[in-house]
């Protein structure tokens, strides 16, 4: 599969500018005015709000199996979640999930 290079660079440029502006926002432009608490309260939940929605279809209907739920991949996802909750360590969760995936693929 080849992604269109022009599209890729448009995405990179927009993300670079957007991400930089987000980081620079208060530090650079807005200065020392504290954010209203309700704004902070919403910003706090952006990663846990976006990432599960992104990952759910990838876990349940993986493209590699033609969109059919796959026991090995479901098992790997479960192990990665549990390892992440238990260890609070991203790397440990990646390794546990990866090991579970290959174990699952080998068993099925």
């Amino acid at each position, binding site marked *: 599969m080849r992604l269109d290079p022009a599209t890729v660079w448009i995405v990179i440029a927009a993300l670079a500018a957007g991400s930089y502006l987000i980081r620079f926002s208060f530090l650079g432009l807005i200065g020392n005015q504290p954010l209203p608490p309700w704004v902070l309260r*919403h910003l706090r939940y952006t990663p846990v709000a976006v990432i599960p929605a992104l990952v759910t279809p990838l876990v349940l209907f993986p493209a590699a199996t033609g969109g059919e739920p796959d026991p090995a991949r479901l098992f790997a996802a479960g192990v990665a979640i549990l390892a992440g909750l238990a260890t609070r360590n991203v790397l440990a969760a990646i390794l546990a999930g990866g090991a579970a995936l290959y174990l699952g693929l080998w068993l099925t």
Partner: protein
Amino acid sequence: MPSPPSTGAFRRGVHAGLPFVIVVGPFGLLFGVVATEAGLDLAATLGMSLLVVAGAAQFTALQLMIDQAPTLIVILTALAVNLRMAMYSAALTPHLGAAPLKVRAFAAYVLTDQTFAAALAAYERRESTLSEKLSFFFGSAAPVVPVWFGATLAGALLGQSIPPDYALDFAVPITFLAIVAPMVRTLAHLVAATVSVVGALAFGWVPYSGGLLIAAALAMLAGAEVERRREAAR
């Protein structure tokens, strides 16, 4: 010979940043491999890490491009993942806001989950001057950010030699779950994550991956509302 205070602060920053290398290194490596497998060339893969400097957002954009989502959706969703950095920026402003504009502009470039976590913890632990705080901040970035670039490059080179049938399609979902699971620390986080999953399934029919943004917005509102109620009840 005693070193000047800012040198000491820089060294303390480096020490605080070093443990993150264990996470950022393999994570960058994985990004390089997966991006290369997805068909990004070396320049685009490395360019993304150099210019965007945000792992979760980079993986998000990559996955959505693989899914052939419209470019605008790719950009909006990946930026939504990065919105949390506005919170970091706001939280650092009382500490670094008095620095010259050029210094703040560079600080914004190396502002990541890792440098933010290290710096804010240190600022809350001990009183320091502006120059010490800046030295600490750049010290914490010194091991983290170059490793992110180097690991991406290594991953991109490695990815060119890995055959495509190693179930690497699932590296991205596993990485996302590994990023997000440790973030679920409170009931509000759990509610937000659950609404996010249910929303993704309920709005999966919306064209152009639009359901993702709907689910994310609802989940954010749900998390914030649970936090507000729990605070009000206290």
